[in-house]
């Protein structure tokens, strides 16, 4: 119950908050919670644990730290520029929570543990890509998506955490470090990092 509440609040902050720092804190709380829940599956072997430790360090510490430092150097990018007003975003959070509960209640998916939390986190990751116009928010959205998939791995397939850890660590690597390198180049053209500025190529 407590875990579900933490995930729900962190997910809501990701969608509702319009500032990078607030969203980063919510992301770290979410990533940490998921890491604690998945730690049991990582104790299968030393190699699995080592991979889990590296992936967790990358997702919980390095990725948010890198984004946080970037925001500090480029304060104009702090505003995540939500594209819809708060009430609509709140409705979206409620819809995500309901959809996640509905999915976990389906007979075909009944054998999957904690499916409601997995589905909610994945939906929040996708939601961040939709409701925020700032490219940093999109990077955090990809990280949240990766967290949700990693969580799914440790809950649904505890027998093979190595490929899953490797996969989600790869996701975090791509989302954060390649994303930041591209954002560093894009910010020269648009200091606000607004996705609306990426509309030269159309048709």
């Amino acid at each position, binding site marked *: 119950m407590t875990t579900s509440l933490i995930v729900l609040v962190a997910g809501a902050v990701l969608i509702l908050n319009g500032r990078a720092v607030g969203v980063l804190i919510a992301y770290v709380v979410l990533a940490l919670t998921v890491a604690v829940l998945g730690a049991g599956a990582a104790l299968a072997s030393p190699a699995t644990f080592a991979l889990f430790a590296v992936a967790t360090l990358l997702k919980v510490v390095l990725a948010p730290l890198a984004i946080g430092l970037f925001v500090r150097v480029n304060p104009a990018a702090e505003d995540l520029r939500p594209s819809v007003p708060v009430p609509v975003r709140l409705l979206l959070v409620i819809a995500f929570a309901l959809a996640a509960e509905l999915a976990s209640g389906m007979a*075909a998916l009944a054998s999957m543990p904690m499916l409601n939390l997995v589905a909610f986190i994945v939906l929040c990751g996708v939601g961040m*890509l939709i409701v925020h116009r700032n490219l940093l928010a999109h990077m955090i959205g990809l990280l949240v998506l990766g967290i*949700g998939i990693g969580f799914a*791995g440790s809950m*649904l*397939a505890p027998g093979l955490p190595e490929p899953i850890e490797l996969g989600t660590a790869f*996701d975090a690597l791509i*989302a954060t470090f390649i994303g930041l390198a591209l954002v560093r*180049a894009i910010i020269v053209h648009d200091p606000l990092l607004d996705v609306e500025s990426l509309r030269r190529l159309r048709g």
Partner: protein
Amino acid sequence: MIAWVVAAPLLAAIVTTAFPDLRTRRLVRIFLAAVAAVLSLSVAGSIGWLSLTFTVIVSVLSFLATVFSTGTFSPEWGGSETIWSRKSVYFVLLGAFWSAMLLVVLAQNFAALWLGISATTLATAFLVGFSGEAAALEAAWKYLVLCSVGIGFALLGIVVLAHVTIAGGMDSRLALSWTAIVGHGFGAPPPAARLATVLMLIGFATKAGLVPMHAWLPDAHSKAPAPISALLSGVLVSCALYAIVRTLEVGSALGASWLLHEILVWLGVASTIVAGALMLAQRDLKRMLAYSTVEHAGIVALALGFGGSLGFLAALLHIIGHAFAKSAAFFAAGMLQNDFGTTTLAKLRGLWKRGGSGRLLLAALIALAGMPPFGLFVSELLLVFAGVAAHQWVPLGLGLIGIVLGFAAISRNAIEIESGTSAVPRIAGRLPTVARGTIAVALTGALIVAVVPWTALGASLQGIAVAMDAAP
């Protein structure tokens, strides 16, 4: 051994950077790339025909792209301030891209295949944005975000697949191996199998650029340097389609076959029609070629969706033929860019009279339009037979409308740019013969595909098609 084969292109690219002399470095680069390509064939005995066929496509075309890049690398490709816009970085990323694609086609399970697909994003995001121009950065960003979301869903599908197969009594070490899953013999279809395979299909379809997940492809494929566009369109899309073929194989074993075939048919119809229509509206050659990739991916999806041994054979032949034809077209577009400084269709006129790149481009466009004697004519003919055999009249009719639209776009533009009198002066000397040679080799590949059905390779492909059709 497979690990060495996969690592070889990347290692070769890294080793090459140690040579300070430009001429020596070029020769070493081509020699080591050739070694890496030949080395990849050494695993022939330990992998199946399907993997081997795709390994040959990856290695031959990646080698050609390396040779073409070595002969044509232009300072304009990386003239910006971005940290990755350097020649040495370009070739290392090209090597990494090649290695990642080999990992995809040599993988024996979905975890390794997914890592390969994911690694291609890692390597190519910077190659797409290599020029550092605002438009190239935009393309790279869209590519990164949309493909990451797509392959994220594929990974989620793979996780659910593992859950399904382990719950079905499979050993966790083999839970993601397609050979093991097909051989396991599941009784009743597992409840979550559909969810798993549909997520995987949607994820890999995003990487293949099928409509409606295609938004990143025209931007990324048109803004990358020409040899990278050739690999993205010709080979990476083939790798994504290979992943779809493997998903279909597993989906059939898990009782999700009908649903996957239906989804593929309609993704194919949407892709051929939307891309065919948008090809007519394009004003840039590379962008038109990029939309043509969406159209051809749609044709393959349609053939896979029709199923049956004819459908699978059409899909496999089309993937091979398209890989060679599209690579040739992008190489030729790169030569035009070098010769005239533009790929804007309205500015390109009278190319036939000016010889060289224009004539090679015409041959590549004829191949892409699906005209004889090139291989895509045979595969499109087989597609029609497969649609008729499957009694899928409506999707076949709609798919053919899309193919006709694409044909019209290519024909109109080919006639316009090859005829008339050019107003654009040549800005550079002729490219080295070796660069033109790469286009000729790629076109030969596209031509040979036409006779493949009557060769030993054709018999093997038919064997694969029959085996896939017979899967439970």
